[in-house]
């Protein structure tokens, strides 16, 4: 059976309240953050710690708050970030109930009074907000995301018309943050065999590339009740994508191509 409840050692406990502000403190100034903490070496269950961030001293994004907490309150808080402007895809996490990038999400956008932050759902946790992406990257490798050709390599470059290049719009922008895949129930239940929306969007990017000569082979490798057809068009992926891409449409396009060659 699919595991709907957390295993015993993953059950979340109440954590520490790090810096509760004074009772008469201005509530608009201090924003409450509830952050998932897990240290595999401690042998303890995960917990949710509470921090208060001084908005007068901190930038507007959720990532700013995390960095503020790490610098000012708790240096052990662990998360990934690099570009802090939505192009590297490393700060993806579950914020206020939605998978998104911490660096492009305004703290003000959060609906909850306290902003809840968890790692990407249904992934093994390395530490705190850092998920283990090994399988996700292996799946990306599996679809061979590079140009494959058999014709002799041209002297200068593989040419592409403007119209054909436009077909890659909405696909090439993907930053592989995995917000979509880890929001997909099908990927939760069958992530070992289902490739998930992010990887399928990439697969579609190479199927759609006018320069690639192995389109049929690519489709062969995707045609599988699990790899591709576990997508039930639930559309969580499209809702989650922080780059505004539409993985569900990319998957629908792959299915259309499959039917076309029946």
């Amino acid at each position: 059976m699919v595991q709907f409840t957390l295993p015993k050692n993953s059950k979340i406990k109440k954590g520490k309240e790090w810096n509760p502000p004074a009772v008469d403190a201005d509530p608009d100034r201090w924003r409450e953050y509830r952050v998932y903490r897990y240290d595999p070496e401690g042998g303890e269950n995960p917990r949710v710690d509470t921090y208060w961030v001084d908005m007068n001293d901190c930038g507007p994004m959720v990532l700013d708050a995390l960095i503020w907490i790490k610098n000012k309150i708790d240096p052990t808080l662990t998360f990934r970030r690099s570009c802090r402007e939505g192009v590297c895809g490393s700060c993806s996490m579950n914020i206020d109930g939605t998978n998104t990038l911490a660096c492009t999400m305004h703290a003000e956008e959060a609906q909850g009074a306290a902003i809840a932050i968890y790692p990407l759902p249904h992934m093994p946790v390395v530490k705190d907000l850092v998920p283990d992406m090994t399988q996700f990257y292996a799946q990306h490798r599996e679809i061979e995301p590079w140009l494959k050709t058999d014709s002799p390599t041209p002297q200068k470059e593989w040419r592409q018309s403007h119209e054909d290049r436009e077909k890659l719009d909405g696909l090439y922008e993907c930053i592989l943050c995995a917000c979509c895949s880890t929001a997909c129930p099908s990927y939760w239940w069958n992530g070992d065999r289902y490739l998930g929306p992010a990887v399928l969007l990439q697969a579609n990017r190479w199927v759609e590339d006018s320069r690639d000569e192995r389109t049929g082979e690519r489709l062969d490798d995707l045609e599988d009740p699990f790899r591709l057809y576990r997508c039930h068009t639930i559309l969580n992926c499209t809702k989650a994508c922080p780059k505004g891409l539409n993985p569900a449409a990319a998957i629908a396009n792959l299915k259309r191509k499959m039917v076309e060659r029946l």
Partner: protein
Amino acid sequence: MATPLKRVRGLGAARHGTETFWRQRLTAVANVPLVIFLIWFVVSHAGASYEVVKASLANPVVSVLMLAMIWSAAIHMRIGLREIIEDYLHNKLCKVSSLMLATFFSAGLAIASTLAVLKISLGG
């Protein structure tokens, strides 16, 4: 000890699934008018006597539409049940036996319904 790539590749792509996908869309499209017809038939015969309903069912057009509905719905149901089982049941024995039961159930239902319609329409 297997590498992540080895694990992800597993036994390779089955190279099928598109036929099933297409059949599910096809039966879904067919089910729309057929189910509307069924509802219309039931509503328009509400309160009618046994003989009247039996006579209507014996009409060849009605019989054909009923048979089409039975098979379209049964095929659609069989595909849907399989999807659900594969989504949620991961224990091998559980999965395989459920898949068999789903097939027997869908086929049994379709065959029994077909027999009923044929009996009426051929005047049994």
